């Protein structure tokens, strides 16, 4: 536990701290730096202060007994009558993490008719699968589902709880972490488990082009959400191992005041997350109709098309076509970006693609730090040229 303090007698008001702060947490007020509510105690200002006028104060705070909280719990999501693939990816990651500290990996299934999936999960190296199967859990209601997971967490006291960053998981996880007054980190792109069982959660941070390492230092369990396609799915083993634990339904489920009225499924369109080839347009596109070239190239390559955030904000297309922290994470075999600058919120959601080709007129654009191949130049020449050459080759 720490906080940042600025020593007034040493400070000469140079303002380096305010400039260097990645969170904009230092305001210069009449030539004196003042901390505001955005401070995350990251310590960047300490390093940048030429006067050594900024210090980090450590204070002792009581922590829970971490040895009482063991093992990793994965929330196995069932949506549309199917096990969501992110659940398997999380089990794979959990097993990797668990190895170093001799933890076991457990999974929990909540819903109606989810019991059959328990047998399937036993093929992925989990120790125990807890099942809460009840007609009252037919449709996802955050309060009702949270009651079930809370019940199992109280029973097994896991150190870490991993939840898929789907719309369901994003509603469930905050309700749960709040019930345990503990930390939750959204959209982690990397996870590491320290020997003291602290989970190091890495995610793109707040506005700037930075990644933050976040730790829940003194409470348990440690909740984290991870998106689909960020972690690798484990191999299914032929043999099943582990046990299934059927639990009775906690009474909070029946007490939920929320009633399901109707569900209107949207026609199943292919998600950009499932595409093997993606052609992406960014801020460099000057008008909406230029997206037609992006779509044409995607068509020629039998792939799909996507955009970066500025184009969604301009209203050219919808959020489900957007790659990035506020859109989807993708991991195709080939991705070609046109006029995308490559801010961290974008780059961190596509940098695991097999082949990344970036076209941008600015040779210094950050997208070239993640790309395998750079084509520096005007997309209005390169894109039509590429389309023409591919058409010729295919003819």
């Amino acid at each position, binding site marked *: 536990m720490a906080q940042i303090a600025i020593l007034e007698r040493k400070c000469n008001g140079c303002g380096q701290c305010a400039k260097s702060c990645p969170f904009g947490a230092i305001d210069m007020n009449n030539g004196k730096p003042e901390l505001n509510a955005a401070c995350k105690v990251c310590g960047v200002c300490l390093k940048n202060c030429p006067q050594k006028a900024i210090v980090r104060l450590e204070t002792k705070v009581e922590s829970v007994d971490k040895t009482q909280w063991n093992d990793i719990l994965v929330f196995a999501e069932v949506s549309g009558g199917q096990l969501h693939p992110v659940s398997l990816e999380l089990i794979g990651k959990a097993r990797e993490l668990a190895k170093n500290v001799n933890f076991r990996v457990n999974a929990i299934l909540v819903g109606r008719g989810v019991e059959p999936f328990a047998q399937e999960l036993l093929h992925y190296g989990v120790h125990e699968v807890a099942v809460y199967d009840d007609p009252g859990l037919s449709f996802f209601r955050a309060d009702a589902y949270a009651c079930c997971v809370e019940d199992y967490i109280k029973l097994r006291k896991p150190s870490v709880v991993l939840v898929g960053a789907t719309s369901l998981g994003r509603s469930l996880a905050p309700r749960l972490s709040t019930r345990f*007054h503990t930390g939750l980190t959204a959209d982690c792109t990397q996870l590491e488990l320290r020997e003291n069982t602290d989970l190091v959660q890495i995610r793109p941070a707040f506005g700037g082009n930075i990644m933050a390492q976040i730790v829940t230092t003194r409470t348990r369990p440690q909740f984290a959400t991870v998106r689909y396609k960020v972690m690798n799915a484990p191999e299914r083993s032929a043999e099943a191992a582990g046990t299934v634990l059927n639990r009775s339904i906690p009474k909070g489920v029946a007490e939920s005041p929320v009633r399901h*009225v109707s569900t209107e499924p*949207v026609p199943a369109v292919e998600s950009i997350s499932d595409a093997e080839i993606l052609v992406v347009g960014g801020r460099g596109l000057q008008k909406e109709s230029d997206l037609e070239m992006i779509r044409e190239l995607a068509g020629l390559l*039998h792939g799909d098309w996507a955009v970066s955030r500025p184009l969604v904000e301009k209203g050219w297309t919808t959020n489900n076509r957007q790659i990035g922290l506020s859109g989807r994470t993708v991991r195709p075999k080939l991705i070609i970006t046109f006029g995308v600058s490559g801010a961290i919120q974008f780059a961190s959601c596509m940098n695991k693609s097999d082949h990344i080709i970036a076209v941008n007129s600015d040779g210094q654009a950050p997208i070239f*730090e993640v790309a395998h191949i750079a084509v520096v130049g005007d997309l209005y020449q390169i894109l039509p040229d590429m389309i023409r050459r591919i058409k010729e080759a295919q003819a």
Partner: protein
Amino acid sequence: MKILVCVKQVPDTTEVKLGSDLTLQRDFVAQVMNPADESALEFGLRLKDEQGGKLTVLTMGKPAAENMLRESIAKGADEGVLLTDAAFAGADTLATARTLSRAIAFLGGFDLVLFGRRAADGETGQVGAMTAQMLDIPCLSNVIAARLDEALTAEQLTESGVTQWRMPLPAALTFCEWSYALRLPTIMGLRQAKRVEIRKIDFAELGMERMSCGLHGSPTRVIHVDTRPVGVRPCQKMSVEDLLETSSWNDAVSKEDKQ
């Protein structure tokens, strides 16, 4: 009926400028209301137009966030409340939710608490659901439309479709960006906004423990920040002509052709 809209000031990301070190240049970035919060505010205003009641706008942040509250009043909100104190500094989502829920109780409670589904800067999308949990009221996230008669009906957007839910008040909703386009201020509203006093509440007035808000009340800690995050690849520069001859291009494209 008492309606509360929780809003946040965020950097206007449509006009991002990156410095030479690739961090956001905050000096040049205007602060605006978070886009998803605009939907929540507009829904609240429409509800008030139809059914009457009092609409309060609440934010936690720097003193400068007062402007955003005045703009909300110019658009039809009745009052603005600003939670501002150095003791709130460094709050993570849990500490923020705890402070908001304390303020909600302090202000006498509300029938409907509205949020944006996530902030455009932090993008965690946690504060709404956490606050609702602390208030022990139901919360529906990713709402694209809602209406109120004897009970509240809301349409929730998920990956697989749109689901309609019904629940009694009090309740909380978190709205998707662009589901309700926020109106412009009125002349009357602008006059009102100039005159009205923005209520500022600090840590002492809320009567919170120092250990429950701000950095002290946050279970999560940023322990390290990496400014060259994704790793730099040895990126090969080439022309389109050469690109189409590379094996990586041909492998990726030909596999698809066979299908």
